[in-house]
């Protein structure tokens, strides 16, 4: 892990409850979620690895046996918000997870320490 690099995303008041928004960071897109029901914050890549859609920020939040997850709106693949693995399709790649912190009503995402233990080494190579 490298040093932290906290970027400002938005204010807590701007956030929907139990849902996500998309944050622009250079050419990257990061999905940020405010899981009000658990009083937790998460951030992941916005790109759904299933069909490469920029969609996870528009996904529905939930839990399965206590583990928080987000469901992609396209085909409802669900991803763990704690480690990024796909919970309903073993063959689907995992997503990147970023740390989030709240300070004085503002939300920050650490874009340096991407946690990506589960990304498979095998990238799709269809033309």
């Amino acid at each position, binding site marked *: 892990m490298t040093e932290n690099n906290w970027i*400002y*995303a*938005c204010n807590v008041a*701007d*956030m*929907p*409850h*139990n*849902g*996500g*928004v*998309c*944050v*622009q960071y250079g*050419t990257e*897109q990061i999905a*940020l979620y405010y*899981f*009000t*029901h*658990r009083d937790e914050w998460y951030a992941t890549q916005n790109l759904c690895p299933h*069909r*490469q*859609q*920029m*969609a996870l920020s*528009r*996904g*529905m*939040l*939930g*839990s*399965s*046996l*206590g583990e*928080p*997850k987000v*469901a992609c*709106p*396209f085909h*409802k693949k*669900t991803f763990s918000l704690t480690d990024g693995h796909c919970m309903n399709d073993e*063959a*689907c*790649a995992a997503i990147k997870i970023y740390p989030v912190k709240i300070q004085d009503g503002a939300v920050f995402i650490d874009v340096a320490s991407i946690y990506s233990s589960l990304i*498979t*080494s*095998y990238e*799709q*190579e*269809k*033309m």
Partner: protein
Amino acid sequence: MKVIVIGNGMVGQKFCEKLIAKKPEQLELTVFGEETLPAYDRVHLSEYFAGKTVQDLCMKPMGWYPENGINLHLGDPIVEIDRSNKTVTSFDGKQLAYDYLVLATGSAAFVPSISGVDKQGVFVYRTIEDLNLIWRHAKVARSAVVIGGGLLGLEAAKACLDLGIKDTHVIEFAPRLMPRQIDEGGSYILSQKLKALGITTHTTKNTAVILGNETITGLMFADGSILSTDMLVISAGIKPRDELAKKCGLHTGHRGGIIVNEHMQTNDPSVYAIGECAVYEGMVYGLVAPGYDMAEVVVNKLIGGTKTFTGFDMSTKLKLIGIDVASFGDPFIADEDARSIIYHDNHNSVYKRINVSNDGKTLLGGILVGDAEAYNQLQQICVNKLAIPPSPVDLIVKRGKDGGTGTSFELPDSALICSCEGVSKLTISEAVNAGNESFDAVKKCTGAGSGCGGCTPMVKDIIAATLKKQGKIIRNVVCEHFNYSRQELYDLVKLKNLHSFDEVLDTLGSGDGCEVCRPAVSSILASLWNDLIIKKENATSQDTNDRFLANIQKGGTYSVVPRVPGGEITPDKLIAIGQVAKKYNLYTKITGGQRIDLFGAHLNDLPLIWEELIAAGFESGHAYGKALRTVKSCVGSTWCRFGLHDSVSFAIEIENRYKGLRAPHKIKSAVSGCIRECAEAQSKDFGIIATEKGWNLFVCGNGGSKPQHALLLAADVDSATCIKYIDRFLMFYIKTADPLTRTATWLNKMEGGIDYLRNVVLHDSLGIAAELEAEMQLLVDHYECEWKKAVETPELRKRFTHFINAPETKDPTIAFETLREQKKAAGW
């Protein structure tokens, strides 16, 4: 124990999986694969063209092999086996010793020796690499020919169609299609069905020469006829890959394949062969399930067991969507040995044949074309030699009203349910008894249903039957967060007067909700209170379509569908739609629901687009919601010479009454002005047809994948009565249906069926009619156009942005392509 596997195809991979599961001591497992990809699912190869990725098809990700201690060498075929020193040498020059060697080299496509097979544009259909080549060539091809009218050839032909080649032909040498599986009668119906899809079939055709200079331009046949084409796929059979085995002196069959005994041992006891490269008792098994069985036998042998391979049932089902073809047992047995019952329906293109023993007691085999719903059941009866009804015709012909090939039969515990994974009925019921009560749990625990998926309905039936035996009533609970059925939840939410998802969850559920219960509860809340769907506390519990009041599409844009009640629209409104579409660069299409869909809108543009549409007098069409969609109309008595009443006016009245109504699933309607039925009312959730005396009201029709005609609920009623009945009908549906259940399915599950429903709606048998009407009136009174509200409320409007920290910026990753002067979403 050093084990080397040659070939990392489906069977080689399954062998590894089964072997490591047994955890043999000091196992050193090495795999050599010629292809550069780890083993992938060849059975579902065609789905690659339908959008599946390499990743989707791979049986295990690359990382799985090292994680399980398997040394995998891909793209490095074995070129030599030295049996006396027990070593193998790879193409890259790796030399390794083995104690046991397993050949799982599969087979290659058999290419007949026709002059010209080396021309460009000629392909085989076996590997992902083959498909990539076909894909590239298909972009410039206008027609395609497949040589081979068997299972694989037909699949390849369908793939050509899916690639956009409209003119596709299949050439078969034999006098009929799928000659190994079906007879003349079946082949005839099959060719009709293929024709309807756009595939032309030619039987009794012998290809003599492939024409063209460098690139193929056509085929010439032995009868002198010529067929022009710019692409050819050869799918004329398989040829076991036995070249290595031959070279090192292993015995091979005279038509190819490595000869093995019942332990899958070759003539060298430390060398085994499994899968499509093996010949057992003169037979090559070109299916995956027997290959898995062979893998199991070898694993068992290596750990000291005594399992043997005894052959395999070769019943098969073609996997083409829309075309059912199946054969089981001995499909051809006839004359002295059996009696055949044949059902041949040229009108509906259905052919069924069963062969029954002469004493009428056992089912020996059969063929199903056009309707293979009974396949699983018949195949089970056949392999398990179950008793059949005294009149065996009942097995294939539905009779009477509630029809069904309704002979209930109980399978023996030993019945093999999932042949891909070799799971018996007993294993499944034991898994259920051990607490795995859902299909997913059973699949995870036993593997049943994880292969081709064909056995899924049977697995579900066995789970239900096992639970019933335990005395458990099977309740359709919503999900892990709510231990209630939708109907129970609906009543409780109403009783406790709950208004947001979190309130419902905290009062009646547990955990944090999920993508199943959130939309289900949201739909209940909307049906009960008709509150604004995108209120802050409810917005995120809606499916994305409801959350952004538009249908999401490939690439992440949205579609816009303004309401056009009854399909009637003024020229000015048409112009307004055209102007908006032009300004925001939207693809426009007339929908199947008599209105216009504007596709490809950026999230950021949605409020701007709707602002203009609303100013022109439009309202939301709720195309995104589980809600009333359209009420189609035919032109009716105002213009039509047959029209009995003004069907357009009535359709508009009805559409305006129920617009915005949320339900367990979408609801569609239509009004026709006479019995000619130009509005197709009998395919709708509720449909109305004018009669001399009034209106006939039909309910519970459905289009979609399982079309069903609507049934008559009330005849010759006046307009007011008709609306009263619809109020009651819809409200009763909303209150009692399971989530995502259309009215047709709801009725199919209802005990007492249409008679019961008629009693409730017309004769108020439950004494709730007044309540239903009042509830509906409340919803009607609460209607407001969601888009108007969203556009006018700054707080809501703000949400239609892609980036929270750059509200002006549209998603830069969205890409379009051009087609017939309009844009289309880029493929995925």
